[in-house]
């Protein structure tokens, strides 16, 4: 009498009943499969052990404030008036020599004409950043036309740094100012939208009007 072929239950918990090679009674996982899993898990843990710290190391600076507040003296109050801008050099990143310096344009706040920027204490001085709001080229102030002109792609800004022509998406950034012992000091950068509402510093290209401001959020680095 021939044995009927052994029936395997494909859905059984037990490896023996499923007819797997190398199965032992009572096992739900074969040792081969268990070793496979262990080796893969060990490899995965070892990889993560160096990959995650490495990634954190590379990405860490985007969660840090990299530009601490430093108040920089730009000259005595007598150097500036409320009708025209005076160029000054400011050190944005002191560790990299000339590459860390930038030109700023300084004038006295004109109480008759200038808008007081919303959400901000009245600033004694207006300090305009020369970083174009289009792609970051340095703009230059032309006294004859009372405009800021960008050499790269033709951005034109008015006397207040408001966009008058060309591709820039928002007015020129400004810096906080204060007066200490009769000397003008310049602090952190801040950005403005076309309504002259104040924002934390944003990169050039970042729109700040209407819904755009939510697509270009405030970042920990600024």
């Amino acid at each position, binding site marked *: 009498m021939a044995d009927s072929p052994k029936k395997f239950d494909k859905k059984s918990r037990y490896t023996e009943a499923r007819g797997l090679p190398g199965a032992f009674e009572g096992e739900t996982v074969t040792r081969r499969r268990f070793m496979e899993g262990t080796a893969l898990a060990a490899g995965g843990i070892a990889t993560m052990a160096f990959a995650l710290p490495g990634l954190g190391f590379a990405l860490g600076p985007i969660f840090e404030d990299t530009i601490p507040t430093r108040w920089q003296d730009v000259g005595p109050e007598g150097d500036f008036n409320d009708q025209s801008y005076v160029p000054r050099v400011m050190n944005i*990143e002191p560790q990299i020599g000339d590459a*860390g310096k930038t030109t700023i344009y300084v004038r006295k706040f004109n109480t008759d004409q200038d808008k007081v920027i919303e959400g901000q204490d009245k600033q004694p001085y207006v300090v305009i950043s020369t970083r174009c709001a289009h792609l970051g*080229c340095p703009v230059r102030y032309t006294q004859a036309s009372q405009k800021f002109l960008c050499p790269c792609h033709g951005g034109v800004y008015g006397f207040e740094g408001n966009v008058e022509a060309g591709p820039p998406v928002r007015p020129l950034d400004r810096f906080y100012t204060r007066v200490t012992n009769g000397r003008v000091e310049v602090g952190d950068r801040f950005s403005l939208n076309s309504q002259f509402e104040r924002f934390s510093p*944003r990169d050039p290209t*970042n729109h700040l009007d209407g819904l755009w401001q939510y697509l270009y959020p405030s970042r920990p680095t600024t």
Partner: protein
Amino acid sequence: MKLPAPPLPKALRRSPPRPGQDDRKNGRNGPPATKPTPKDQAVEGVAGVVGWLDERTGASPFLRGFLYRKVPKGTNWYYTLGSATMFAFLAQAVTGVFLAMYYEPDPTRAYESASRITNEVFLGEFVRGMHRWGSTVMIILIFLHMGRTFFFGAYKYPRELNWVIGVVLVVLTLMMGLTGYLLPFDQRSFWATVVAVNLNSSGPIVGPYLADFLRVGSEFGPTTIARFYALHMLAVPGLIAALIGAHLYLVAKLGTTAPPWLKAEKKDLLKEEV
């Protein structure tokens, strides 16, 4: 077991003995009449080394399959653009390694070290020139290769994945251009990089963070140039080399396509039936 013969050029292959020559050469029937010439010894030596390596690596069947694979009728010079791009990359890698021996990725010294390479180091101007112009050559070649693939329809089934890998390689090659442009650290490269990083910043939500990653902060800082340097000489070329390997594997595995103007030949069998 008889091992397959290594794919040597004819000059290096051991020729079968001619009748009558055999006895003298191996000296079976008495001493050899003539000593082996230096040329014979050199051929023997090279063949011995190649045979030794082949016996231990089994490389020759693989190399024969890879280098002597059959290509379709109509294969022409346009099919060399991919190899040309790869050799441009290899030239960039080699010249880049040598430039790295003199270059200092420090914002206060980068410009000086780059001009020292050009003006003082022996052959420095030449090696830097090869790297500088070679980058342009590589970008031109990779786009010509991409155009060839597109216009010959070589991206179609079953080669879609190779097209995708190729597109990633194009992007990585452009990233090499972007990260390398900063390194001379003159006015042009500084401002071009400022503009390029701000372009990255224009992407909604992630863009500003990407720009922060590239600059190491919200402003161009003391480690920006080191980051660009590390991306330029380690991360991106490593990825490019790995993907070139995958790209070539798929080319060898799937074969190349015939140019689109060649029609498939009718089989003789069909002619007979008509």
